[in-house]
Structures are given as structure tokens and as C-alpha cells.
């Protein structure tokens, strides 16, 4: 009886499986896309994880923590350093980037746990990102400073990642696994506790929920997801540079979260697609490209304040996600 009611009725859940078709259909992309287009698609996969991780903190936990670029850079440099100096296989470097990114997430959560919130948390986490950039620049004995660290050719198990197509398949696999795991997490009692903290932290504790534990968990998971994105980014660009992780990058990440839709995983994917593909498209208008990019962000936020994902919900309530309202 009760199973036929609610947001998780079998028919609705079945319809949402339509999302599983997306990566399956995507498998054919390398058969018609050229190297450049495939590079853009690979960048979209990287930024999908960047945005999914960031949105968890901004949208779900509701904290203005901007350490995302730090997690991204830390993930990239972890993979680069392990591969360059220690000849670590790429698979293990990805795992290490997730772990180190998670540790960075833990460090960022300490600020939030100490009661630093809102603008104070924003500025302290931005400073963390800038501090890391200083470390990449001045730790030049290891990082090669502003020249950047050049990666050796990577292979994923036995697959050499020497062109965009094999990178695409590996990135697609990683993205699907991480997005699915994050989605499982957010649709569970853990995800519920995280949005409960966003809505009313003190009453969340009155329900027996250890709020500090879930704040830490959200930051660690976010750091690990973005750390993996960093590991992908290192192999995508083949050279890890400090300037890839500056303040402009923070704005782009934040733009992806807002344009896609805060607190929504599908929104994160849409935001990453839109704000990765559009700047590439606008490159044909040199001098005007950044202007167009800015106009698009402003227009979306003016007319779709809940992000691109709210368009999807207008088509059908089937696409309505748990813990996301528009």
C-alpha cells in the first residue's frame, strides 16, 4: 500500500533509469567526433565531477566553502607528482588523488566545524585555494613552478592514454562510477542528514543526528570527488600548471553549480556541459568570448534561478529528484 505512494513510487523510479542510457549512448561519441571535439567532451567529464563535488557543499550542505579549486589542484598535483617522480601507475595515482583530496576536504571542514560560517568561511576557503597556488608556484623544486609539471604518457591498466578516445572511455567510466556513488549517498539517510543540516542545523541534532560527523563526511566526499577530477584533468592537459587553479577557476566552478542548479546532481552535469562547451564555442569570436560567456550566466540566472535542471522538471515530474525542489 504505502509503496505505491511518494516520490519513490516504482513507476517514477523506473522512468528515472532513463539516465543510465546517457553514458551508454555516449559510448559512440569517439566514432564521429574529431580529436578537438573529443577533448571538449573529456573536459566536460572532468568538470562534471568538479561540479558534483562542489555542489554537494554549496547546494546540499549549504555552506559557502570555496576550497573546491584547492581540491582540484591538489588532486592534479598528487597524480602528477606520483607519476613523474615515482612512476606510479595512473590507476593508483587516481586513488591517491581521491585520498589526498579527501584529506584536504577534511581540513576545510575543520573551519566549518569551528563555527566559521557564511562570508568568513567563504574568505577562509578562498585563502586556502590561493595558499595552495602559492605552494605550487614556490615549491618549484617539485612542481617546476610556473612552467608546470609535464606528465609522462599514462596508461590505465593496459590501455595507453595516448589520444583522446581512450581517455574518453576511462574518464566516462570514472565519471559514471563516482556520480552513481554520490547519487546513492545523496538519496540515502546520509544525504537527508546533509540537507537537514542546511535547513536547520540545531534541530537536526535534536533528531539524534551527529551533525559534525555529516559536515565532515560531506567535505571529505566532496574533496575526494574533486580530487579524482584533478587526476583526470592532469592526464587531459598533460601539464599541470599553477594558473589552472586560480580565482577565475573558482568563479567558473561556482557558475557551473548555479547555472546547473544547486543541490542537484543532474543540474551539476548540465552546468558542467553548458559552461565547458559554451566558452569553446565562443572562441570563434575572439575578444568577445568572455563577454558572451558572462551574458549567458546572467541570463540563465535571471530567467532560470533554479538552474537548467528546473527546465527538465517542467517537462515531467519524473525528473524530480529527492531533496531538490524548484
Amino acid at each position, binding site marked *: 500500500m*504505502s509503496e505505491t505512494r511518494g516520490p519513490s513510487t516504482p513507476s517514477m523510479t523506473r522512468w528515472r533509469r532513463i539516465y543510465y542510457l546517457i553514458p551508454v549512448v555516449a559510448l559512440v561519441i569517439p566514432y564521429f567526433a574529431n580529436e578537438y571535439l573529443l577533448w571538449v567532451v573529456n573536459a566536460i567529464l572532468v568538470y562534471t565531477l568538479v561540479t558534483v563535488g562542489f555542489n554537494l557543499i554549496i547546494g546540499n550542505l549549504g555552506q559557502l566553502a570555496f576550497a573546491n579549486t584547492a581540491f582540484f589542484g591538489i588532486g592534479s598535483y598528487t597524480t602528477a607528482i606520483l607519476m613523474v617522480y615515482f612512476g606510479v601507475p595512473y590507476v593508483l595515482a587516481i586513488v591517491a588523488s581521491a585520498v589526498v583530496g579527501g584529506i584536504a576536504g577534511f581540513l576545510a571542514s575543520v573551519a566549518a566545524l569551528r563555527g566559521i560560517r557564511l562570508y568568513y568561511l567563504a574568505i577562509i576557503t578562498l585563502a586556502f585555494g590561493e595558499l595552495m597556488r602559492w605552494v605550487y608556484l614556490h615549491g618549484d623544486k617539485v612542481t617546476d613552478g610556473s612552467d608546470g609539471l609535464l606528465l609522462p604518457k599514462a596508461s590505465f591498466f593496459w590501455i595507453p592514454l595516448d589520444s583522446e578516445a581512450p581517455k574518453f572511455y576511462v574518464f566516462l567510466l570514472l565519471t559514471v562510477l563516482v556520480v552513481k556513488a554520490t547519487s546513492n549517498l545523496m538519496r540515502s539517510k546520509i544525504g537527508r542528514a546533509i*540537507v537537514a543540516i542546511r535547513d536547520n542545523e540545531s534541530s537536526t541534532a*535534536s533528531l539524534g543526528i*551527529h551533525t559534525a560527523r555529516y559536515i565532515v563526511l560531506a567535505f571529505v566526499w566532496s574533496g575526494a570527488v574533486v580530487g579524482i577530477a584533478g587526476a583526470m584533468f592532469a592526464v587531459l592537459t598533460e601539464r599541470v600548471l599553477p594558473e589552472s587553479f586560480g580565482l577565475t577557476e573558482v568563479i567558473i566552478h561556482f557558475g557551473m553549480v548555479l547555472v546547473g542548479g544547486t543541490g542537484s546532481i543532474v543540474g551539476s552535469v548540465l552546468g558542467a556541459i553548458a559552461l565547458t562547451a559554451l566558452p569553446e564555442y565562443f572562441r570563434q569570436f575572439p575578444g568577445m568570448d568572455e563577454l558572451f560567456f558572462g551574458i549567458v550566466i546572467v541570463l540563465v540566472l535571471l530567467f532560470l534561478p533554479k538552474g537548467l535542471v528546473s527546465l527538465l522538471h517542467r517537462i515531467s515530474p519524473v525528473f524530480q529528484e529527492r531533496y531538490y525542489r524548484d
Partner: protein
Amino acid sequence: MEPLLELQGVSVNFAGLQALADVTFNAHAGEVRAVIGPNGAGKTTLFNAVSGYVPTVAGTIHFKGTPIQGLAPHEISVKGVRRTFQNGGLFMELTVLENILAGLHVNIDSSFLGIVLGLGEAREAEREGIARAYRLLDLMDLGAIADQPVKDLSGGQQRMVEIVRTLATDPPLLLLDEPVVGLSPPMRDRMMEIIRRLAGEEGIGIMLIEHVIDLVMSGSDVIVVLSSGEVIAEGTPDEIRQNREVLEAYLGHA
């Protein structure tokens, strides 16, 4: 009968100001105990002290014989003391069902790994939680609004949902901070009826803060009167009605 909650000399200070002074009383299972007093008397501070939201500077608080003072709010909640909030503690962006599920959090038995990997046991635990949440909502005739966001509900419905949420884990003791404020008179009576039933039939110990003196007199078994952080009287409604000190300090006529 052993008391459910024992307060012994409990004091709370805010920046040198004494908010609670030497508060001592026992609360029992199956009893509706009203806490009354003028604004600033320390009623909500008393609830905050019992539920771990403000630290005590002196005294002991025992729940079912074990000390709970100094524990964090979530620890006290897990022990079985659940509360509502004066300004409403619901998650406004979430639906009624999701609010109840959050209330059931500690009863949903799934592991982190099971959740991340989407294992059957984790999904089964979530399904059981949903079924249990619907049973609770149906009990209070709230099943029909299960999928509505809480922010779209009336004040009365919100109060009701918050009480159902505290009840989700079958707690032995409920602290209700102004459960009927802002409700229409018929809704108020209905709420008091439910509160009486929870104490009478389920044997839950209930402490509530209330300003409407008629409701307190007709609906509670015991009344504790606070004034300037001190207990100035404790007794049945009849005893309180005849207490001179209370009449002067609180009811304003001698």
C-alpha cells in the same frame, strides 16, 4: 515509581546573568507536566539545558537514572529525550515524509559502504523507514500530505508534523516548546487531546511550555512555575490555582 527525569540544583548562566537557579524537580512517565512563567523566566532555557543545547554550571540532570548533563544534543536525543522548537524545527525545504524520515535517522540501519555501493540491505533499510514513516503519518491522518513540502503547510499541520517527527523513535520523554501557539482554538483543543493521549495511552512523559492558562489548567497533571530562573511553585492545577505567590508573580492578581 522511579522518575523519568530528575533535575537536582540545575543552574545556567548567560554572561554572568543567572538564567536558571537551582532548579530541582522530577518528571514521570505518563505525566503531562506544564512549565509556565512570565517571559524571560527561563522556560526555554530549562528545555535547552535538559536537551543539551546550553551548558549547565551546576547541578545534575538524570534521565532514567543516568546522568545526561554535559552530553551533546544528539546524544541526549538518542537516549530518548526528544524535543520541538518554539520557532519550529522542521526542515522547510523537505517534504513531510522526508522530515519524518530524518526523525527516523537513527533507526534506519544501513552502513556507509552499503549506501555508496547501493547494496540491497541499504535499500531495504530505507524502504522499511519509508513504510514506518507512512504508518506514523497515517496514525495522525497526515498520510495525504506526505509529499508536500513543509513550507506549503498551515501552521497547525506544521506543529503536528513536528510532533510526529519527535515521536518517530518512540522516545520515553518529549519536551514540547509551545506546541499550540498560533493555532486556532479547535486545533488547540485537538492538539492538547493528542498530547493527553500520548501520555495516557502510550505512557510517554511530556513536558510542555504553554502560555494559555486555561489549557494548562485543564490539560496538565503537574505544573511547574518558573520566575526569574527559579521554581517558585510545583503542584497540581488546583494547588497552583490557590498558590498566593504564583498569583502575585505570574497571574498578576492577588
